[in-house]
């Protein structure tokens, strides 16, 4: 364990050195680590490597004024003319974004744009996210060459970084002379493709790392070791699939992994194409493979889901929940009560009066602002709806009417889509439930998840309801209005604890249903059984939700029922 940790730290050291050689080509570092001595030590190294210049720090809740520059209040008032400040992104150099996992989609996109516009702007994102779902947006991570994960490293495994500053200086000087052997590009691109890295930015960033690595070791030509470094630092952390090395390896990979069918085709295609396989590529792949976390495949699903879920997790009372809170035109108002003054609008309101006020007061130097000029920012807080589909994927359901249930969800999804609702999918089967998709507006995602849904096993209805409840609360904390639509045949036979016991299972399910009613989520229970199940109607009334047996529901009446059931609130 400790040996592995040591290796990780050495790699971090190498990554930092490569980064310091050519920061602008590498774009930046995405560092996943909790706050702690290890991270501090890494950042210390970074500051030292930057020759002591302290990087500027951003904050995920930063407004555009601070980022891109805005009106300087004090100076403007003092001078009577607009004075603008230079934003933090206004000048090149290294900027640090702490708590990067809190950055909202808007900020991610803006930072990505800033990185694109200014090659010399470099971002070090400190991501403190716990778990796969909580992470910096893909728009940014894909522009940062180096992905490092220092989580779980103990300070004992992380001795002070050895940065040879003169050597870095030499490497920077050497960098422009480093040449690339012809095969390097094709090798890195192939490795990237085999690892399932679709974006073409990745191989380009890998090339930059390979160059930096060569310069670091004093070579004027990129060698195999540099390519290996590039693969380890850039490509392996982005891998979305295990590379298919040969047929034996293909069979080795666990059979229950569900990669998308087209992906698998590609995999075979590429491996066929590479029959006269280039040994260097294979070697690089081996290197990458050694780096891949063992639970890669398990994490993939979560990561993919996170992509859509991560549209917002904003804190702060103002934007709480409204991930697309719409700014309204500013209105006249008074300062206080935490209202935010819209400075520009205030100045605009005051501007036409200046001549008169100056003349009236006899004071010509200063800016005359009256209380009536004050303009306050307003936001429209529209609550969005999140419909949580709880789908029974148990054996009994699957046997009977899984496809009908899917059909019903499709109708509901189409409804949800046209109303711009968020949709989440929870499936339960076997001994537990899982979130197939956290609340999202992306139809593409939902479609994929739904079609991949397999059936079989017991019916842990209570677990499904519990998960829906949790998801609903989470959605509510983000300012959405959650609704729960349950599709089941109602034969609950697995309890919350995972025991196969019909009696406790039914009790648990009823308890969870009551909990949902207490939370005042609107809901709907759709019976997908071959014939209506008596118990399910009772469950629905426990939940305070209408009960709708699917057998009698054609498409139209189903969607009408959902419409009425879910618009109660």
């Amino acid at each position, binding site marked *: 364990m400790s040996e592995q940790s040591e290796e990780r730290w050495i790699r971090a050291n190498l990554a930092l050195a490569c980064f310091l050689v050519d920061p602008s*080509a590498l774009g930046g570092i995405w560092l996943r680590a909790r706050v702690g001595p290890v991270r501090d030590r890494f950042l210390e190294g970074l500051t030292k490597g930057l020759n002591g210049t302290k990087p500027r720090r951003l904050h995920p809740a930063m407004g555009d004024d601070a980022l891109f520059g805005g009106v300087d209040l004090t100076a403007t008032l003092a001078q009577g003319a607009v004075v603008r400040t230079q934003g933090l992104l206004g000048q090149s150099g290294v900027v640090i974004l702490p708590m990067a996992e809190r950055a909202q989609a*808007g900020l991610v996109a803006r930072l990505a744009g800033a990185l694109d516009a200014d090659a010399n702007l470099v971002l070090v994102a400190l991501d403190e996210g716990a778990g796969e779902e909580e992470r910096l947006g893909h728009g940014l991570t894909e522009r940062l060459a180096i992905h490092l994960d220092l989580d779980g490293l103990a300070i004992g495994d992380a001795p002070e970084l050895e940065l040879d500053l003169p050597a870095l200086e030499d490497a920077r000087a050497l960098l422009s002379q480093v040449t690339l052997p012809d095969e390097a*590009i*094709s090798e890195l691109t192939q490795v990237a493709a085999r690892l399932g890295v679709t974006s073409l*930015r990745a191989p380009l960033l890998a090339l930059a790392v390979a160059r930096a690595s060569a310069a670091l070791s004093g070579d004027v030509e990129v060698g195999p070791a540099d390519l290996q470094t590039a693969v380890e630092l850039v490509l392996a952390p982005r891998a979305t699939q295990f590379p298919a090395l040969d047929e034996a390896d293909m069979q080795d990979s666990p059979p229950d992994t569900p990669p998308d069918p087209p992906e698998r085709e590609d995999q075979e295609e590429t491996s066929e194409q590479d029959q006269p396989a280039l040994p260097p590529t294979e070697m690089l792949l081996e290197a990458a493979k050694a780096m891949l976390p063992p639970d890669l495949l398990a994490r993939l699903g979560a990561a993919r889901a996170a*992509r859509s879920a991560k549209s917002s997790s904003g804190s702060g009372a103002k934007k709480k929940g409204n991930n697309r809170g719409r700014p309204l035109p500013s209105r006249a108002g008074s300062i206080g009560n935490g209202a935010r003054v819209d400075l520009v609008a205030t100045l605009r309101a005051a501007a036409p009066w*200046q001549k008169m006020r100056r003349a009236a007061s006899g004071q010509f130097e200063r800016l005359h602002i009256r209380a009536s000029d004050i303009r306050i920012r307003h936001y429209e807080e529209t609550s969005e709806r999140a419909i949580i589909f709880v789908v029974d994927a148990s054996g009994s359901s699957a046997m009977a009417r899984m496809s009908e249930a899917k059909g019903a969800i499709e109708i509901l999804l189409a409804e949800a889509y*046209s109303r711009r609702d968020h949709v989440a999918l929870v499936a339960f089967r076997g001994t537990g439930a899982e979130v197939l998709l956290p609340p999202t507006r*992306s139809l593409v995602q939902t479609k994929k998840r*739904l079609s991949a849904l397999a059936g079989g096993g017991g019916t842990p209805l209570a677990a499904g309801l519990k998960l829906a409840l949790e998801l609903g609360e989470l959605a509510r904390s983000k300012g959405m209005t959650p609704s729960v639509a349950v599709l089941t045949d109602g034969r609950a036979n697995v309890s919350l604890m995972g025991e196969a016991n019909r009696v406790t299972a039914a009790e648990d399910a009823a308890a969870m249903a009551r909990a949902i009613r207490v939370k005042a989520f609107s809901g709907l229970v759709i019976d997908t059984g071959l014939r209506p199940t008596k118990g399910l109607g009772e469950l629905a009334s426990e939940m305070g939700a209408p009960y709708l047996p699917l057998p009698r529901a054609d498409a139209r009446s189903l969607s009408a029922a959902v419409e009425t059931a879910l618009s109660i609130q």
Partner: protein
Amino acid sequence: MRHAFPFSAIVGQEDMKRAMILTAVDPGIGGVLVFGDRGTGKSTAVRGLAALLPPITAVEGCPVNSATQDDIPDWADVTKTDLIEKMTPVVDLPLGATEDRVVGALDIEKALSNGEKVFEPGLLARANRGYLYIDEANLLEDHIVDLLLDVAQSGENVVEREGLSIRHAARFVLVGSGNPEEGELRPQLLDRFGLSVEVTSPKDIETRIEVVRRRDAFDNDPQGFLAAWAKADASLRDQIVAGRKHLASLEASDDVLRDCATLCIALGSDGLRGELTLLRTARALAAFEGAKAITRTHLRSIAPLALSHRLRRDPLDEAGSNTRVTRTVEEVLA
């Protein structure tokens, strides 16, 4: 200012390139919406295209790039009369942009210091006669999108606020891009874009290698790379310029009009915008290719670009709208 990657050096992504070229031939087609994976060269293509286009002639110092003295809006304080050549403008619309920045607003500085009511033009003014590029259009605030599409359609920006009453020409090609996995555009908005393209990362390993190789060559030696591709870019430019001239002489025959209508009816696209875009795009393609008349071949090849985003959306149709359009085109124009 960084050099733009030469447009003709972009590997693959034929649909996207074609859509952009066609809007360059006839800006009246309306905007282009590019939806797809990251790192597929969406913004590279826009910038490359603008760099390639012939420069526009504009009155020096005019905030809306007016071509002649008469076009200068009355609020603009333009003292010079010289005509200068400048590059086709490409204006980026940053995601957080406020309404003020986009449409323009009262110039506070002038108002504060001189008590004058002067209009400070926004991004829309700068984009006149050029391109307005929105990355991640699907994340843009809805009210800004509404506003943009409205202006893009009418070609005029009307500002009525803070005691200002101002209008100016704002004819630009709107290019939006985004990743559908992060949320989709409202169907009403989709319809307002002239063309739509879906881009995916190239699957073929050789293509991918070529992309990386060229980009790498460009990054290492921009000047040399630009010089190497200057000829290809120039010939594309000539073809676009020739296409623009040729455009007016192409008339649509009754047969072509009938085909457009039949196609749109068969696909059930709402309104007549589908037909109009179809016709304009086909004409632009014919002009670009130097053809004598608009033919079914032209229609066939641009129908997916012009129509795929106008279909009534079947949220769970696995095939995707492109396939549906292609299928219908095959049936109707058989």
